[in-house]
C-alpha cells in the first residue's frame, strides 16, 4: 500500500513542481470546454434541437464526453503512451521485471495531476445538467450512468493498449493510435445528427459513441439494453483481446538490458 501512495504522491509532486505546465493544461482544458459549449450555445440560438437532444440534453451529452476524456487523461493516457514508448525503445522488459508488474508500475507512476485540476469544474458542469434534467433521472439510472462512464474510460484505455500492443508485431501502431484518437473526437457531436449506418459503426465497431451517447441515453431513459450491456462488457472484451495480442507479441519481442 505504501508504494502505491508514494507513486500517487510522485504524480502530484510532478504536477505541482512544474506549475507552468499545470497552468497551461488547465487553460487548454478550460478553452476546450468553453469553445465547445460556446459553439452549442451559438447554435442553440438558431436551432431548438440537436438531432434528438434539446439544449439541456446536449449540455449533458458534451459534459459526459468531456468527463470520460478527462478521467482517461488523469488516470490512463500518459501510462498508455508510456507503454507504447517502452515497447519501442526496448525498456518494456524493465517493466515486466518490476516487483509489482508492468501495469501497476506504469499506471501508478503516470498519474496525470494537471488534468485533475479541471475535473471538479467538469463534475460541476455535469452535475448542473443532471439537475436541470432531474425530472427524467432516477437513482438507478444515475448509478448506471456512473458505471457506464467508468466503463467508457476503461474502454478507451484497453482500446489504446490493444492498438499499441500491435507494436509487438512490428506494426507502426502510433500512427494508428492517432487515427483512432481523431475518430473518437466524433463523439463530441450528437449521434442522432449522423446517418444510421454511421451511428451503428461508431457505436459497435469503433465505439466512439460509447463514451458520450450511450451513457447520456441511459441517464435519459432512451437507451436500448443491448447497447448498455455492450458498453459494460466492452472493456473486458478489449482487455482479453489485448492480453492475447500482447502474449503473442512477447514471444518474439527483443528488449534491451544490461
Amino acid at each position, binding site marked *: 500500500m505504501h508504494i502505491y501512495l508514494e507513486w500517487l504522491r510522485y504524480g502530484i509532486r510532478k504536477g505541482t513542481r512544474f506549475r*507552468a*505546465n499545470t*497552468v*497551461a*493544461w*488547465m*487553460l*487548454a482544458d478550460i*478553452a*476546450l470546454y*468553453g*469553445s*465547445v459549449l*460556446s*459553439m452549442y450555445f*451559438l*447554435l442553440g*440560438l*438558431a*436551432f431548438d434541437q*440537436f*438531432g434528438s437532444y434539446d439544449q439541456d440534453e446536449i449540455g449533458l451529452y458534451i459534459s459526459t464526453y468531456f468527463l470520460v476524456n478527462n478521467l482517461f487523461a488523469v488516470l490512463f493516457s500518459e501510462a498508455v503512451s508510456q507503454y507504447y514508448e517502452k515497447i519501442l525503445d526496448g525498456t518494456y522488459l524493465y517493466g515486466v521485471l518490476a516487483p509489482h508488474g508492468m501495469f501497476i508500475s506504469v499506471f501508478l507512476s503516470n498519474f496525470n495531476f494537471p488534468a485533475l485540476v479541471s475535473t471538479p469544474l467538469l463534475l460541476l458542469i455535469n452535475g448542473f445538467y443532471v439537475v436541470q434534467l432531474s425530472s427524467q433521472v432516477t437513482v438507478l439510472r444515475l448509478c448506471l450512468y456512473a458505471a457506464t462512464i467508468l466503463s467508457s474510460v476503461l474502454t478507451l484505455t484497453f482500446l489504446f493498449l490493444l492498438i499499441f500492443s500491435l507494436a509487438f508485431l512490428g506494426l*507502426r501502431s502510433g*500512427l*494508428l493510435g*492517432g*487515427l483512432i*484518437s*481523431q*475518430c473518437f*473526437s*466524433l463523439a463530441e*457531436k450528437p449521434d*442522432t*445528427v*449522423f*446517418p444510421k449506418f*454511421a451511428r451503428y459503426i461508431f457505436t459497435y465497431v469503433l465505439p466512439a459513441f460509447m463514451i458520450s451517447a450511450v451513457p447520456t441515453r441511459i441517464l435519459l431513459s432512451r437507451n436500448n439494453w443491448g447497447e448498455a450491456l455492450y458498453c459494460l462488457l466492452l472493456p473486458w472484451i478489449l482487455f482479453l483481446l489485448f492480453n492475447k495480442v500482447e502474449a503473442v507479441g512477447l514471444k518474439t519481442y527483443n528488449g534491451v538490458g544490461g
Partner: protein
Amino acid sequence: MVSKRYIASSLRYHMAMFLRYRLKVVTSFFSEILFPIAVNILFVVGLTDDASTGLTPADLVQYVITANLIFMFSMSDLDCVVAKDIKSYQLIYKMEAPVSPWLQYVLSDLFSKLGNLLLFYVPFFLIMAVLGNGVTAPLPLIAVFLWISVVLGYCISFIIGSLAFWLTEVWGVAAIKNLVLSVFSGTIFPFSLLPNAVQNLMNCLPFQYISYIPASILSGTVDLRDAPTLLLGGVFWSALFLLVAALIWRCGLRKYEGAGT
C-alpha cells in the same frame, strides 16, 4: 531578398520530408483532412436537415469543405516552432542567417503544406467542381481574401510563439488559439445559420476572415457588393495583427539572450 537557391533547396527538402514516410502521409490524410471534414459535413447537414436555413445540403457541403481546407492551410503550428526556437539556441542561428527568421518560418511552413495542397486538397476541389455552382467571384478578389486569411493565421501564430520570450510554456495558449479559432472562424458551420444579431457580433471579430469570409466568397454565398467593406475590414485586421506581432517580437528580442556553438 530571398535567393532562388534558398527557395529551391527549402522546397526540395520539405517535399522529400513529406514523401519520406508514406504511411504517415496516408494516415495524416485520413486523420487530419478527410475525417474532420467528413464529420463536420455530416454534423452540419444533419443539424440543418429539417430546418429552413436557405442553404441546400450541396451548399453546406461546399461551404464546409472550402472553410476547412482554408482553415487547415492558414493555420499552422508555427507558434510551437517559434517558442521552441526561443527556448533553445536555434533562434540565434536563424537570426544570423541571411534570410530573416520570419521569412524562414513562413517559407518552411508554406513548403511543408505544399505537399498537402497538391496531393490532398485536389480531390476536394474536384468534389466542389462537381457539386458547386462554380466560382462566381473574380479571382483577384479571392486571392486577396486568401492572402488576408494566411497573413492573419501567421500573425496569430507569431504573437503566441513570441510569448515564449516571457512565458515558460506556450502550448496551452496555442491550444486555446486552435480551439477558439475553429469555432469563431466559421470552420465548423457558416455564420449565416445564426440569428442576425449574433452574425453582426461575429462580423466585428477578425476571426471570420480566416475561414468564413474566404469560404463564403469562394462558394458564392456572399453578395459581391459587400466585398469592398469586407476587404477594408480584412486589410485593417491583418495590418493590426502584423503590427502587434512585430511589436511583440521586437520587445521580446530586446530581452532575449541566447548561446550556442
